């Protein structure tokens, strides 16, 4: 019983993190129908931002969140402006390997600057501390990460669904051409989607850095989890990404308990089954 | 003994999630005839084509080809049975030369490249594309690309050729040439033609019989002259006022 609660709680917490990671991917796909293979690298950059801030500034890594958001946002916008915008008109194959090129470029750029070694945060208020809630023992940084992710998810959800800007984004996702006729600058919308995607996943990275190891190649692991989440939730659906994130969090928590070396395999298998038997996912189009 | 129809469609209904595209269509095609299908936009003509050719599964109803029930057959099986079709939107293979495009059609009847090439050469001569054989279709004008699609369809040695708006975008001279070419091809290859078209001079000239559809239903059938005079047909195209006026 205690184990079950432990697993479920920890699964849901990680689920919130996955949900935030998936949010950006889903948003980008919804707005311009492109799968961003570089998404995991943006996350990795967020991790390194946390590392830099806590190593060189007398600040707790938590303070790196705004930095990670800004850098993630800029990275997204720059990627859009210099690469994505030019491959949008091309064949799907070109889009695929365009974002692959971006992924490799960012990964090896970071490797060049920081070296390939695995690192972790040097210090932090919440690093390495545990919390007990009832009989459940939780990693303090995971709780904090989950909390922030939930908050941010809600914030972005509010922006998308309750603001004029969000409406413009949604209009562009539904029909870019029609949106253009209505005076919406789709190029700006596309860039914005990339910016929000980069910012949210950058923050997620900075949060993850509190309890996950930091290395230039970590991006791939998370982008695959993000794909699984987005597929399960439905490409393009924000609420779907949330629900799916929690489900994937639970899968990897439970799977990890029984066969810890294969916990990612369960996620990948879940992805494969979803995509083959229910390509629309839970809520997608 | 009653002759078997080449193509028989019985009470075909095709629904897309509640929207009825074709409702209770029945028609028969005699082997060796040229039949036109006309109707205002949205009448369900292309849906009908797609149901016959195997791109859509009819919701209810049946399609028979030479007496065989082909209702739920997938497109490639229908093609192998002897029904070829062209498309309204260009579906040329851009990375293959004109000759290779036509060879793909020929490959449906043979596994040998030499034979396929020979067939393709023959067809290219038939439609007048011999000079363009080694060219890539994207470098050619749309009217020529339509001929490539026609050639490709012919290479499958069909018994029934369904042409979807093959005359759209042609000037009057090209339209006349196309009519003559099609009549010649039909005779030489012993084909039955089933065409759908908006260009009236084209379809009314070439067709022996015309079927008229509107809002998913068949509203008239007969020779071009008969059909042109029917009130229902005029009403479908121009509205009630003009029908009454006639």
């Amino acid at each position, binding site marked *: 019983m205690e184990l079950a609660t432990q697993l479920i709680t920890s699964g849901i917490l990680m689920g919130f993190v996955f949900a935030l990671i998936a949010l950006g991917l889903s948003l980008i796909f919804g707005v311009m129908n492109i799968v961003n293979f570089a998404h995991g690298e943006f996350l990795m950059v967020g991790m390194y931002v946390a590392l830099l801030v806590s190593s060189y500034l007398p600040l707790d890594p938590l303070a790196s969140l705004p930095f990670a958001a800004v850098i993630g946002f800029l990275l997204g916008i720059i990627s859009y402006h210099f690469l994505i915008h030019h491959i949008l008109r*091309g064949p799907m194959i070109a889009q695929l390997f365009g974002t692959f090129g971006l992924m490799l470029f960012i990964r*090896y750029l970071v490797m060049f600057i920081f070296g*390939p070694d695995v690192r972790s945060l040097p210090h932090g208020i919440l690093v390495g501390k545990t919390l007990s809630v009832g009989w459940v023992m939780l990693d303090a940084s995971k709780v904090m990460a989950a909390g922030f992710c939930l908050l941010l998810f809600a914030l972005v959800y509010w922006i998308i669904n309750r603001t004029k800007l969000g409406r413009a984004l949604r209009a562009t996702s539904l029909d870019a051409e029609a949106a253009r006729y209505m005076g919406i600058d789709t190029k700006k919308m596309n860039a914005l989607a990339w910016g929000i995607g980069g910012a949210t996943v950058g923050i997620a990275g900075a949060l993850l850095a509190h309890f996950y190891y930091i290395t230039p190649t970590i991006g791939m692991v998370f982008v695959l989890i993000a794909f699984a989440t987005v597929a399960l939730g439905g490409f393009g659906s924000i609420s779907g990404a949330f629900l799916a994130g929690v489900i994937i969090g639970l899968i990897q928590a439970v799977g990890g308990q029984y066969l810890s*070396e294969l916990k990612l395999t369960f996620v990948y298998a879940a992805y494969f089954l979803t*995509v*083959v038997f229910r390509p629309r996912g839970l809520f997608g189009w | 003994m009653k002759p078997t129809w080449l193509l028989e469609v019985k009470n075909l209904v095709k629904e897309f999630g509640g929207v009825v595209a074709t409702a209770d269509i029945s028609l028969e095609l005699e082997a060796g005839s040229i039949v036109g299908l006309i109707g205002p936009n949205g009448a369900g003509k292309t849906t009908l084509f797609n149901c016959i050719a195997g*791109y859509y599964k009819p919701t209810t109803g049946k399609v028979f080809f030479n007496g065989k029930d082909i209702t739920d057959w997938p497109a490639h*099986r229908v093609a*192998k049975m002897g029904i070829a079709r062209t498309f309204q939107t260009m579906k040329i293979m851009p990375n293959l030369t004109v000759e290779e495009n036509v060879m793909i059609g020929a490959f449906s009847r043979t596994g040998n490249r030499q034979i396929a090439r020979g067939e393709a050469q023959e067809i290219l001569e038939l439609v007048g594309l011999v000079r363009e054989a080694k060219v890539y279709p994207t470098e050619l004008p749309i009217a020529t690309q339509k001929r490539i699609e026609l050639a490709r369809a012919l290479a*499958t040695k069909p018994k029934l050729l369904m042409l979807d708006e093959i005359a759209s975008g042609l000037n009057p001279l090209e339209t006349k040439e196309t009519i003559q070419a099609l009549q010649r091809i039909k005779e030489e290859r012993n084909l039955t033609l089933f065409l759908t078209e908006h260009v009236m001079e084209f379809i009314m000239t070439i067709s022996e019989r015309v079927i008229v559809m509107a809002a998913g239903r068949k509203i008239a059938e007969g020779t071009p002259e008969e059909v042109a005079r029917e009130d229902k047909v005029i009403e479908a195209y121009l509205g009630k006022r003009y029908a009454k006026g006639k």
Partner: protein
Amino acid sequence: MVQVLKDIFSFGDRPLSERIGFVIFIAIVLAFPWFVELAYARAVMIRFLLFALFGLGWNLIGGYGGQVDLGQAKNVGFGAFTTALMTVWWKTPFWLTVPVGMVVATAESFVVAYPMFRLRGHYFAIATLCVALVWKELFTFWDWTGGARGVEIPLKAGADFAYMQFPSPIYYHYFIFFLFITQFLYMNWFRKSKLGYELQAVRDNEEAAASLGINVTVTKVKAYCITAALGAVGGSFMVAYYLYIDPHMVMHIDLSILIAMTVMVGGAGSIWGPIIGAAILIPLDMYLGAWLGGMGLYGIDFMIYAFIIMIIAAREPKGIWGIVERIRKRG
């Protein structure tokens, strides 16, 4: 029969300049070990031929088929592990293990192909990625395949043609060249075969292909299975050459991505693409990368490679060969 031989060896449909270029290329490769004695250079050449080999197989489904498969490493792994395990368990001579590896890869591919080909475009690509990942995790987890430690091949003394183990890289050079030229000639035949044409038709326009009697799914499945078999051969070679394999080496997602990217950079769908792509990647990685790595600077080689990929994606999706053909058309 004569026609088949002609199809395999004839490049009559390619312009003379290409044919001459190819002959020169083959001559250089064949003469290479006699002129170049530096061990490292020989290793680079062998690795180049290996990646050209991988590329040839991938080009079938990815280039001529237009289906971006990001999981080819699983097939490399199937070939590699089949050869390694058969050698270690049953002392099977190398050349008997190769067809078995090919069968294993083909069988698995046949099973996963049908569900996967319900998908198109990036959904398909991601599904292929997933399948390959699951297999790699399984092979890492399983003890009977050696787990993460992999399989080590016992060393034989001298030149052993039964197990294809040799004391000098010269043998390996001709060994990999043989595999490369075999698959190259096969691809030359394939692109002119009925399946080759039908595959390209499916790539260019599925609906039109169906209207011409082509069973689109069956065509894709056939192509996918053939690519799997071809990939397995490269895996078997790796066993004989490296005398050691593990899942990280032969089934890693990075290998899949590299194989796919290399062909796309070189020119997917053209017979020269895989060779060009490998000719850029391998020297870049093994000369520039190794040199800079020695100085503690990691990643520049792949940054350059990634940059090339991005430019090609934005400007000429048909790859470097696409650029060559575009220039040729203008001039």
